[in-house]
């Protein structure tokens, strides 16, 4: 690969909102039910049925827009996007075109400690389609003998978030998708589950020769079902395009499909001469008006978002990497951190223990959630500060806390892990070790400094490891000099 190629990536994200009812009718939004049970005249597009906008969905897209620092249109309209498809009951999708609810925002992402600000072009409201189930011949459309239609998903509120072409690498693409998913999840407006399709990513990719060159021909890639496959697909596509261009080929504007097994993108259809959606204003709906009061009200209901949380953690003294990890960690870990700090623990130490040892313990034990008393964690940190626990002893105490064996002190006592802080007792142990090892004392005095290690070990053994090795070391040197 020659130097100088710059990828230009934009990402479109479809988010299914978890409202109680569908976008334009009263049918339940519910997954995994028997086919065609959550349907009505409106979402089946029976003759004469009309759409009515779901106010909750609008509230939620505004929430998403505000979380992404978007401008909220005080006045926006729905359009009909016309195309014939069996799982699209009306054969048009109610969507938005030139005036979306949200536009011109941004989202900060972090890759390897560097923050990049990705522009948000727009977030608009639309509705989902039904599902086609191709029966026979392995479910592939061209070989199917029969197609069944399930309209349970038809009309589920969908928000499309379109980024500006500000993403410059596969890693950034992944970070953008993950960060956006995190924001959506924390707003509580969607299940935000990739595997269930409640959040779906498409990427538009082109490459150009350096940051000042014109944009190249873009290719849209679809069917990435995980963050990992998104990153791999983008990476593959960047390399494919560069290879094409370096072979003096050209890039065809097209849609490509990510084949997870083969780890390649393959051409789905060319865009040239393709669909003209014949957008026009949806005459069955009135313009959407967002009053400044409504906007303010929704703003006041926004939860703290990851980037705000990260800033707050930094201010508490947590280091950057840990703040980043913790601010996007799941709720259980975050509240453990907040509560531990609330119980008086040092924030930096609490963050390090939670993102380090607690997470490692969960991974070791293969558990997804923890139920832990934050006061015990705070107590454990306090005991470390008071030299009552060594670092290794603290890990064992934490293990006991996480296993529900009791408070930090109770665990430390029952597992006999408390460090000796009684200087008199340490001193007498030192004295007896010195008395029992006269030749070692001799050798030290003869200049063999390293023999101190042996003596420390003897003292630690005599104290069953509960003496602070640093204190023992200091005391020994003092007595030997």
């Amino acid at each position, binding site marked *: 690969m020659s130097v100088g190629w710059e990828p230009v990536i934009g990402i479109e994200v479809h988010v299914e909102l978890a409202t109680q009812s569908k976008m334009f009718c009263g049918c339940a939004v519910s997954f995994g039910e028997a086919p065609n049970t959550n349907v009505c*005249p409106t979402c089946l597009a029976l*003759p004469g049925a009309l759409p*009515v906008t779901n106010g909750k969905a609008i509230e939620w897209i505004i929430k998403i827009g505000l979380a992404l620092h978007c401008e909220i249109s005080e006045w926006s309209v729905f359009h009909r996007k016309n195309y014939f498809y*069996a799982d699209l009951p009306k054969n048009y999708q109610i969507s938005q075109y030139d005036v979306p609810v949200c536009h011109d925002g941004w989202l900060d992402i972090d890759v390897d400690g560097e923050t990049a600000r990705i522009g948000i072009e727009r977030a608009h409201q639309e509705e989902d389609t039904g599902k086609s189930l191709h029966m026979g011949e392995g479910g592939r459309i061209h070989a199917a003998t029969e197609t069944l239609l399930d309209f349970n998903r038809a009309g589920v509120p969908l928000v499309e978030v379109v980024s500006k072409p500000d993403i410059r690498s596969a890693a950034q693409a992944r970070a953008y998708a993950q960060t956006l998913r995190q924001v959506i999840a924390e707003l509580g407006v969607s299940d935000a589950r990739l595997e269930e399709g409640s959040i779906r990513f498409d990427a538009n990719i082109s490459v150009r020769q350096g940051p000042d060159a014109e944009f190249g021909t873009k290719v849209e890639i679809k069917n990435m079902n995980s963050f990992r496959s998104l990153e791999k697909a983008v990476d593959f596509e960047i390399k494919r395009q560069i290879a094409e261009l370096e072979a003096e080929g050209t890039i065809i504007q097209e849609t490509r499909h990510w084949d997870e097994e083969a780890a390649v993108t393959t051409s789905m259809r060319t865009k040239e001469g393709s669909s003209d959606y*014949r957008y026009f204003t949806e*005459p069955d709906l009135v313009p959407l008006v967002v009053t400044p009061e409504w906007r303010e009200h929704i703003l006041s209901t926004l939860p703290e978002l990851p980037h705000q949380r990260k800033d707050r953690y930094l201010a508490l003294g947590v280091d950057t990497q840990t703040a980043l990890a913790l601010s996007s960690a799941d709720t259980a870990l975050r509240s453990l951190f907040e509560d531990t700090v609330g119980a008086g623990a040092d924030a930096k130490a609490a963050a390090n223990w939670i993102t380090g040892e607690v997470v490692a313990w969960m991974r070791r034990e293969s558990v997804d959630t923890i139920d832990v008393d934050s006061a015990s964690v705070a107590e454990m940190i306090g005991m470390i500060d008071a030299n009552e626990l060594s670092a290794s002893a603290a890990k064992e105490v934490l293990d006991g806390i996480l296993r529900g064996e009791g408070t930090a002190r109770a665990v430390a006592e029952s597992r006999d892990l408390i460090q000796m802080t009684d200087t008199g007792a340490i001193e007498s142990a030192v004295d007896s070790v010195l008395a029992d090892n006269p030749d070692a004392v001799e050798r030290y005095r003869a200049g063999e400094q390293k023999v101190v290690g042996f003596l420390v070990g003897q003292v630690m053994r005599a104290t069953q490891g509960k003496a602070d090795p640093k204190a023992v070391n200091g005391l020994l040197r003092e007595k030997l000099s």
Partner: protein
Amino acid sequence: MSLADLTITDAAAGLRAGSHSSVDLTEAVLERASMTEAEVHAYLTIDREAALDAARAADAELAAGEDRGMLHGIPIALKDNMCQRGVETTAASQILAGYRPPYDATVVTRLRDAGAVLIGKANLDEFAMGSSTENSAYGPSRNPWDTGRVPGGSSGGSAAAVAAGSALGALGSDTGGSIRQPGSLCGVVGMKPTYGTVSRYGLIAFASSLDQIGPITRTVDDAVAVLESISGHDPLDATSWAGDYPDLTSEIDAGVAGKRIGVVSEFAGEGYEPAVTGALSHTLDQLSDAGAEVVEVSLPTVELALSAYYLIAPAECSANLARFDGMRYGLRVDGETTEELMARTRARGFGPEVIRRILLGTYALSAGYYDAFYGQAHKARTVLRTEFAAAYEKVDVLMSPTSPTVAFPFDAKSDPLSMYLSDVCTIPSNLSGDPAISVPVGLDGRGLPIGVQVMAPAMGEPVLFGVAKTIERLAGFDARPAMVEELA
């Protein structure tokens, strides 16, 4: 005189006076239908048993002192583009042959709540596209005044039923004149309410921004009675007016003294039959004598209205009718692929006028043409609204012929453009969303009815009905089709 020829007002009074029952009325109407339908073909479906059941229920309620108001026990026809649960509803299209909706349109629910007796589903031009019912896939309706002539359209079946006595009143839908023009051609009252005041939920859409359901009746009072029971906010229709509704009868007996009436000067000249313009002049003279001030008003943009309409309505219909694809209901013609199935179903299921308008609309919305066609049409619509609003600063109502001609013979307007001109006077009110009414005022030399149109600003129904009732009283129009005279 048969009970089938009563006005709703008189029939309602008789029900309460005990001079007849709802069953009597219903039987009279059904009997009339059995005598006229072979010639008139006003109905696609008559639901005899259900109608008689509803009539018996209405009689029982009235006997028990449960009075649901003016329409209680009154036989009413529905245009067949309004969904009625379990009753075949086709919009006069092959593509919906045999289709039985699982739900009631809001107007149907409201008529049921008002105790009306639903007689059946009236014929129309396929998907309400046309001005003669000649576009019905099930054969045209015939004008009771002269069965060699069209009843007008698209609500021709509804108007013919009311004129023939096979319903006391009917609902029509009006996208470009489809209530008023057949009302005029059949010698009955046809009224298009302010857009948004009657729910469109359950009305099979033609052009959503223009469609409006309204009454077709024998008198202005009857139109008021029907409109009162069907209008009002409906949460199932996002374009339904959610604010206050005027009292429809507040000016009904106010007369026209001191009223300013504007005559639209563009609606005259070539293409207007002398009898039609003559009837309008005569009506204006009568109104003037009754104390109204009649002035000429020019609305230059109405000259563009027809063009704008024939871009906006087809554009909307091209999307509205996309759902008829053979996937979920109605006709299905199989194909090798889904696309082929859809294309074949639509090619077979839609008639030529529907296909013409879908193609016209698809073209008008296409990339590269949108601005020149659909975009321009919307600008014209906006200008037209401004012109109407300015006119209503100066006058209380506007008047014109309803249709440039009286009822025309079948096949007389086989060229689509000449047919489209039938609606030249009625289309502007659809584009502006304002209410308008056609009132019969007389007959031409051949004995064919002539109507005049009154238009009012949005929510101006009270003044509209007041002027219309004055016209009705001054005209004293009480002629009936010969076939009705013979049967009565």
